[in-house]
């Protein structure tokens, strides 16, 4: 394998590869910034262009787009309180407050470095542990996935600290919204009111644009052009000055990367959950958890490291087993097949230079996103200077066209605005939106896997419950969840006591 990986490394010496990676990263950053555009769309549209390229060059470009678009949602999250992609929702929690406190450069620097590190660590894990991780992932069955979803849902409670009941209600609303569409096992339609646009459920990207863009624009209109706190003296001019701060948080970086990697291996979950769970873990491990939600550096770093580490994780089942776990890898699988490449063990033997070349190109992509991303961020930071009267209509227009472009559907635009109404009400009445998003994302996984687990034992609830405690992995996750809830309650009590004092 060592010789093969050297072959892969050699492919990087081709200037076409480097160019492809740079182009991919640049396009990816652009995609992540614009609302409505996601990694999936970007990758799907580039695939035809890659037909005329040698496979490793095409894959390198796709990898660049994937990695960069997962990162760059953080730019708009920090600057505008709008997540550019689902991955960046958790970054809103501390990234935007940090920006508002006068340190936008710091927030952007932390996001960029964190994303790069998270991505690189997950690629290293892919390279060294790929097959082993894949084997372990096969041991996860519906009961395990269900418990993982439950564990993810308990993070809702952590995100609601300070407004527990409201956060829990938001979580419930999110979970209910996730049930819109057909039942994963019986096919019965729920909450669709006869609209085919809703048969597959509420489109996540449209929901996010509605939940965050719309209320933010309304707020912009109301705020007017009052003096926004731009930068204060504490915020350094060059983002590279913050590299030291990042390197010091090794524990956070490694833990968040590990979490992102695991989340990536689970099919159908997505980078947003990686960000949330990493954020939650960082909060639990932090010595100053009360700073979370107000601009904590640990929080920002955890989210961005976690969500980018998910990219490497999703590639584990794709490359080693040929099973795509999310829409992006599904498109990549199509791309591989069109080039005549079969993912799986042969990819690493018969086409070793392509397989390893791809993995090394990913490493380079993560590295390149630092300079390219920071340049973009610097120019995007100027956007907050634009008068509201110009910025607000433009953001709304981008939201509309972006939402339309997901499925070429105007109905989606209407759905987006309806959810925007929900988002506006949440903001008005201080209901946290992060738990809602988490509920929306995890609800489908929780319901599908619960139903599937029950179907596997022909509906016998008793046997199912027994499975949860007898299957070793299930038991592990169950204990972890219980511990997490317990710890959450303890922390909440401590925080309330602090507030009372």
């Amino acid at each position: 394998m060592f010789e093969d990986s050297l072959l892969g490394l050699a492919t990087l010496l081709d200037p076409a590869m480097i160019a492809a990676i740079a182009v991919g990263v640049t396009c990816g950053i652009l995609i992540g910034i614009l609302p409505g555009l996601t990694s999936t769309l970007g990758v799907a549209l580039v695939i035809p262009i890659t037909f005329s390229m040698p496979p490793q060059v095409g894959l390198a470009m796709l990898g660049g787009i994937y990695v960069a678009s997962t990162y760059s949602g953080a730019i708009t999250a920090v600057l505008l309180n709008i997540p550019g992609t689902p991955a960046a929702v958790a970054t809103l929690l501390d990234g935007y407050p940090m920006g508002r406190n006068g340190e936008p450069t710091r927030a952007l620097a932390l996001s960029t470095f964190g994303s790069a590190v998270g991505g690189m660590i997950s690629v290293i894990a892919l390279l060294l542990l790929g097959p082993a991780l894949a084997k372990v992932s096969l041991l996860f069955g519906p009961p395990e996935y269900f418990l993982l979803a439950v564990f993810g849902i308990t993070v809702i409670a952590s995100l609601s600290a300070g407004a527990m009941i409201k956060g829990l209600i938001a979580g419930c609303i999110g979970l209910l919204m996730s049930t819109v569409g057909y039942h994963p096992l019986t096919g019965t339609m729920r909450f669709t009111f006869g609209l085919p646009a809703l048969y597959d459920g509420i489109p996540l990207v449209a929901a996010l644009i509605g939940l965050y863009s719309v209320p933010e624009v309304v707020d912009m209109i109301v705020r007017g052009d009052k003096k926004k706190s731009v930068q204060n003296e504490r915020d350094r001019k060059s983002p590279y000055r913050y590299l030291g701060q990042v390197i010091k948080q090794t524990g956070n970086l490694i833990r968040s990367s590990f979490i992102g990697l695991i989340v990536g291996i689970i099919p159908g979950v997505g980078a947003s959950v990686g960000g949330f769970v990493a954020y939650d873990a960082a909060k639990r491990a932090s010595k100053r958890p009360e700073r979370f939600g107000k601009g904590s550096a640990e929080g920002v770093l955890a989210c961005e490291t976690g969500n980018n580490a998910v990219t490497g994780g999703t590639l584990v089942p794709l490359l080693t087993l040929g099973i795509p776990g999310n829409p992006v890898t599904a498109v990549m699988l199509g791309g591989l097949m069109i080039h005549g490449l079969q993912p799986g063990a042969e990819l690493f033997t018969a086409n070793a230079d392509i397989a390893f070349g791809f993995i090394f190109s990913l490493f380079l992509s993560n590295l390149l996103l630092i300079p390219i991303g920071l340049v973009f961020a610097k120019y995007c930071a100027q956007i907050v200077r634009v008068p509201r009267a110009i910025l607000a209509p433009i953001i709304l227009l981008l939201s509309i066209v972006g939402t339309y472009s997901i499925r070429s559907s105007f109905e989606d635009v209407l759905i987006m605005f309806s959810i925007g109404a929900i988002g506006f009400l949440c903001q008005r009445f201080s209901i946290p939106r992060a738990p809602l998003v988490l509920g929306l994302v995890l609800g489908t996984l929780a319901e599908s896997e619960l139903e599937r687990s029950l179907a596997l034992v022909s509906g016998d609830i008793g046997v199912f419950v027994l499975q949860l405690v007898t299957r070793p992995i299930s038991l592990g996750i169950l204990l972890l969840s219980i511990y997490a809830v317990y710890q959450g309650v303890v922390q909440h009590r401590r925080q309330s006591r602090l507030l009372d004092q």
Partner: protein
Amino acid sequence: MRPHDRSLLFAVVLLVLAVLCLSVAFTYPYDSSGFPRGVSVVFLIFAIVHLVTSMKDWKGQENLDEASNDGNGSASGSGAGRAWVAALGVFLSAPFYILLARLFDFEIATFVYLVAGMYLLKMRRPFVVVLVAIGTLLVVKGLFFYLLDVSRAPTLVFGG
């Protein structure tokens, strides 16, 4: 309506929503609605708790208001009103754009939308408005319809 009145009303709305969700969830067959039913029940419980705490807060706020003899409501009254008007405008802009896009085409809809938006928000310097509108139009057009190959919708006037 004062802020704490609104909060109480909202708590009531949430409770109504929970009840609605529960009742709709029960119209679906048993096999297909286990999860929505369960979550609705939990939602209902939380909504009730929330209403109770909101009522306590409301009572507390009422007492405070009486004590300080302040019948004017808080300073955020007018600001809050503006937010609702702004929100309404934003939401109505959606069908407005869609109608234009369906009737004419994307270019005209985008241009009119941007110009109207800026005008309503008090940006009325003609040169700036037209420049921004055309500029954004070109950028979005190039990005979405050329680079990304998004499909254009059929329109009434120009076909497609």
